[in-house]
Structures are given as structure tokens and as C-alpha cells.
């Protein structure tokens, strides 16, 4: 386990360092004044363009964690998928807030700006979870996020069940899985390729995921019941 944890740290550091730095070549706004203006004014299409340009980088940083240069300290990646989604959302929520948009001049590299927001959020979260996250150069405590063989085995078993499930799907559904999940097309793009309506894509997509959940549940790999919590409720009725 410890060895795997160490390996993960190395992988994570390497991965963080190797993240494609789009801004080193060109920020998304470079030479595109209309996009910058639309972004600053809160145009949804412009925000969508910027989001999809950077979301993979930010998600990778959040999933893998990062180390703090000089101190040797490491901030662990998100512990679970929900936390990962929450953090990605928080990053873009802050970066896309009206005041942040209006303050952005379009000249500073945008990717590093987003990554800095992500790092700050992760450091805050690590501190709140009582992890030690020293920021001064003299500190050297490592935060180790062990990744057990258990997690890998669970992924492989779920993936194996998924592949079996996919093999039994109709060709149309298999094509949709490739376009929508593997190639990451939008529903509209996938609909255009398949020659069906977007609504049909959405219906099929839901059916595919529902079927997979059923398969995983039968295999004991999907939680059927979740604990409930009482709600304090006040209504106007």
C-alpha cells in the first residue's frame, strides 16, 4: 500500500508538471477580442468555450493533487468523485463570477489563473480537513494520499462489467457510447453523426446508463439504497 501511495505521489507530481500549458502557447483569448468581450459580458456561449478549453486541466489538477515547490509539501487530490466535481465547479464559479470576469484584462495567461484558484481551494479544503499544509519553505511534512490496490481492483472489475455490458448493446447504442462518452461529443454533435434527434440521443444515453447501473447492481458493484436524512421543512402551504 505504502509503495502504491509513493508511486501515486510521483505520478501525480509528474502529471501536474506535464499538464498541457495552453497559455504557454496561446491563451484562449489571444487574438480573439470578440471572445474576450463576450466572456466579460457574461455571454453563455463564450463562457462555455472558455470552460471546455480549461476544464480538463483543472479537473486533472484537482484529481491528482499537487506539491508545493520548496517545502516538499503535497496537497492531496480530491478523495472522491463528488468532491472532485464540487471543486471543479467552485473554481469556475469563482473565475466566471461577474466581478472576476470584468477584472480580467485578457492579457494575463488564463490557465495559470484558474489553476491558482484551484490550488487555493484545495489548500483551504486540506486545512479544513486537518491535513498539514505547510506553505513556508522550512516546512517539509508530506501529505500522503495512499491509493490502495483496492481502488484499482474495483475500477477494473467495474470496467470489466461495463465492457461486457457494452458488448451486448445494439450497434446504435455502441456507436452512441463511443461518440458521447469516449469521443466526448456534445449531444447535438452525436445526434448529427448518428442522424437522429438530440432528444433521441438523450433518451438513449439515459437508457444506456440506467442499464449499466442495473448490471453493476446485480454484480454487487452499485449501491442500491442510500441512507436518508430527515429534513427540517417549512412551506408556505
Amino acid at each position: 500500500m505504502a509503495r502504491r501511495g509513493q508511486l501515486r505521489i510521483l505520478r501525480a507530481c509528474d502529471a501536474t508538471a506535464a499538464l498541457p500549458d495552453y497559455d504557454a502557447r496561446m491563451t484562449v483569448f489571444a487574438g480573439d477580442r470578440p471572445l474576450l468581450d463576450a466572456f466579460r459580458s457574461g455571454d453563455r456561449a463564450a463562457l462555455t468555450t472558455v470552460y471546455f478549453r480549461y476544464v480538463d486541466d483543472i479537473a486533472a489538477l484537482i484529481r491528482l493533487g499537487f506539491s508545493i515547490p520548496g517545502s516538499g509539501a503535497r496537497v492531496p487530490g480530491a478523495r472522491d468523485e463528488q468532491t472532485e466535481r464540487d471543486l471543479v465547479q467552485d473554481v469556475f464559479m469563482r473565475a466566471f463570477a461577474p466581478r472576476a470576469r470584468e477584472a480580467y484584462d485578457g492579457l494575463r495567461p488564463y490557465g495559470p489563473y484558474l489553476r491558482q484558484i484551484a490550488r487555493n481551494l484545495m489548500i483551504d479544503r486540506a486545512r479544513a480537513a486537518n491535513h498539514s499544509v505547510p506553505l513556508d519553505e522550512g516546512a517539509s511534512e508530506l501529505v500522503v494520499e495512499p491509493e490502495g490496490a483496492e481502488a484499482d481492483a474495483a475500477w477494473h472489475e467495474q470496467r470489466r462489467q461495463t465492457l461486457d455490458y457494452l458488448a451486448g448493446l445494439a450497434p446504435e447504442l455502441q456507436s452512441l457510447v463511443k461518440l458521447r462518452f469516449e469521443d466526448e461529443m456534445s449531444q447535438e454533435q452525436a445526434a448529427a453523426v448518428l442522424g437522429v434527434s438530440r432528444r433521441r440521443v438523450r433518451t438513449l444515453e439515459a437508457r444506456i446508463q440506467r442499464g449499466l447501473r442495473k448490471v453493476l447492481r446485480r454484480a454487487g458493484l452499485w449501491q442500491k439504497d442510500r441512507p436518508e436524512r430527515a429534513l427540517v421543512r417549512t412551506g408556505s402551504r
Partner: protein
Amino acid sequence: MTEPSRLLSGRPALSRPEKEAILESVLAQVAPRARWRRGLVVGTLAVAAAAGAFVLVPRGPHDELTARGGELPPGFEVSCVPAPCTTGSKLVFDVAPGGAASERAVYFAAVGQRGDTRIWYFPGTADGHSVAVPRGGGVLDTGIVLGSEHAPGSYAIEGVFSAAPLDRAAVRAILDRGDATATRQVVVR
């Protein structure tokens, strides 16, 4: 337990549907589709609260992340009054029973989910049933006040439309099958 869309993509990273859901939540907060509509909801809610009246709100335009066309499926929007969503805010549900169902009685159930926690909105009590949707859709006259049970974070709100009132067991069975009619994201700060 891995998100099914990640298993389908073959990668443990965020899947395209997850990215789209996150973007939808972000845009709903930072660039809402129709700013006038939220103000209208607040105003009409105040009137409704005072008069106990039923409130109808016109549907806003739909973007690429919501349904289009003449045959809209059932759906709903949820927002916090006042925004942003935080302890003390009221969750307001604006429901649309869909084109085909708009002429007959429709019932609506909703739960909030965050991780392994499920919070019931409608039915609001263990022996209650889903609530009747205003004919043609509109804002439900019952809101949910966010309390300490809503820790900060992102919540998936799953809605179930049905032709008859459903109790919690029936709604739970539908949700466990992954058959929620529509899902929305709300971020509690």
C-alpha cells in the same frame, strides 16, 4: 463506486456528461438565462405567500443543455430565494409537466442528493405523497427552507413526474432504477 459515465468513457476522469452538468450549474449561477424571470419569481412568490395564491410563471428560453422543440418533456427549474443558496434560503421549484401532460393531472416528487445523503423535498413527510403540479406548470406554492441538513456543496436534485400521487417508497424505487424525470444541480454555499 464509480460514476457510470466514467466507466462508459473508459477513463477515471470527468466524463462529458459530468462536465456539462458542472457547466450548467456554473452558468445558472453566474449567467442565468433570463434575469427578469428570477425577479418575477421573487415578486410573485411574495404575493403568493401573502395571498396563498397559486403562481404561474412563463417558461424561459432553453439553451443547448435543456430540451427544445414543441414536445418538451416534463422538467423543472430550481432556484434559491434569496440567491445564492445558503442556510435560510428557500428552494423554489418551477415545474413544467411537459406538452403531452399539460392537460391532465400531474404530480411531482423531488429529492436532493449529495454523495450518499438523500434529502426528501416532496413528499415532505414519511407518509406523504408527491405534490400536484399546477395545470400547465408554474412555481410550486411550497418552498424548502435550507437548514443545517444542507451542508455547503453541490446537490443533485432529482425530480419525478407521475400521473398519480406517489409515496416515498414508490419514488425511491424509481430513483433507484435511475429513472428520475429530470435532474438539476444546486450549489449551497
